C-alpha cells in the first residue's frame, strides 16, 4: 500500500516552472524604463518646470494667471465696446445746422432751462435775435422776474 502524500514530506521546488528565456532579467529593466520614460519626458517638456518651483511660488503663479485672465477679459470688453472719440463727437455736432439744434431744443422744453436762456445772450447774441425773436433786454427782464431764492426754501 502506498504511503499517503503529505505536502510537508514533498521536496519543495523554489521555482516549479521552467525559467524564462536567457537574459530575460537583464533586458527587463531596460524595457520597463522605456515604458515609463515617455511619461517622464512629457512631464519635463510640458509642465515639468512647474515642479521645480516651490509651493508658494506655484500658488502665486496660479493667482497671477487667474488675475491676468480677468484683466484681459476686462480690457477686451472695453476695446470692443462701441465708443466714439471726443473729437469725432464734436465734429458730428458741428455738422448739425444750428437752426435745427435750436428748434429741437425749443420743441422739447424740458431740455431748455431758464439758466440756459440766461447764458444764451452772452454766448451767442445773434442767435437770440434770429431764433427767439426777443431782444436781450426782454430776456433779461424775463429772468429778473424769476425768484432769486430757490422755491423749495
Amino acid at each position: 500500500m502506498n504511503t499517503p502524500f503529505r505536502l510537508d514530506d514533498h521536496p519543495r521546488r523554489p521555482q516549479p516552472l521552467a525559467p524564462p528565456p536567457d537574459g530575460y532579467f537583464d533586458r527587463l529593466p531596460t524595457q520597463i524604463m522605456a515604458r515609463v520614460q515617455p511619461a517622464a519626458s512629457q512631464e519635463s517638456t510640458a509642465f515639468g518646470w512647474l515642479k521645480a518651483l516651490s509651493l508658494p511660488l506655484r500658488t502665486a503663479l496660479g493667482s497671477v494667471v487667474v488675475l491676468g485672465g480677468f484683466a484681459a477679459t476686462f480690457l477686451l470688453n472695453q476695446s470692443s465696446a462701441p465708443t466714439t472719440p471726443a473729437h469725432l463727437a464734436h465734429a458730428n455736432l458741428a455738422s448739425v445746422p444750428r437752426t435745427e439744434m435750436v428748434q429741437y431744443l425749443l420743441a422739447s422744453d424740458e431740455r431748455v432751462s431758464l439758466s440756459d436762456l440766461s447764458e444764451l445772450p452772452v454766448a451767442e447774441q445773434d442767435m437770440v435775435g434770429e431764433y427767439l425773436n426777443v431782444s436781450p433786454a426782454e430776456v433779461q427782464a424775463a429772468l429778473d422776474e424769476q425768484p432769486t431764492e430757490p422755491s423749495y426754501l
Partner: protein
Amino acid sequence: MEDQEILVKFADPASRNLAFNQLVRKYQQKVYWHVRKMVVDHDDADDLTQDTFVKVWNHLGNFRQDASLYTWIYRIATNECLSFLSSKRRKFFLPLNDVSEELAAKMEADPSLAGDEVELKLQKAILRLPDKQRLVFNLKYYEDMKYEDMAEVTGTSVGALKASYHHAVKKIEQYINEPS
C-alpha cells in the same frame, strides 16, 4: 540599495531614473515569479510584471510608507494577477474550472515538469484552488512569506490567511491521494 534610500532618491527628479532602475533590478525576479506562478504562461507573466512596475512608477510618489515597499509592490502585482484572471474569465465566458484546465494544459507543456509525475500532479492540484487561495498558498509555501506581510499584501486578517492555507494544503493532499 536599501528601500529607504531608493525612496529618497526617487523623490529627487535628478536621481529618479537611477533609483527606479535599482528598484526594478531588486524586485524583478520576485515579482516575475510571483506573477508567473499565478498565470503560468511566461508571456502573460512578462506583460503583468511590466504593468506592475509601470504602476509602481506612477504611484511611488504617493507611497505613504505605512507598509513596507516590498509588500506594497507585491500587492500591486497581486491585484494585476487577480484582475488578469478575472478579466480572462469574463472575456471568454469561462467558468472557474476551464481557466484551471487551461493553466494546467500550459503546465503540462512545461519542460521542467517532464517526467516528474508527482510534481506535475502537485501543480495541477494547486491550479484547482480558487485564485485567492492559490495566491495565499504560493506566498506561504513557495516564498515563505510571514503571515503579517501576507496580510498587508492581500488585505486579509492573519487568522483568515492561516485558515486559508491550512485548507489549501488539505485540498491539495486530498487531490493527490485520490486514485486517478
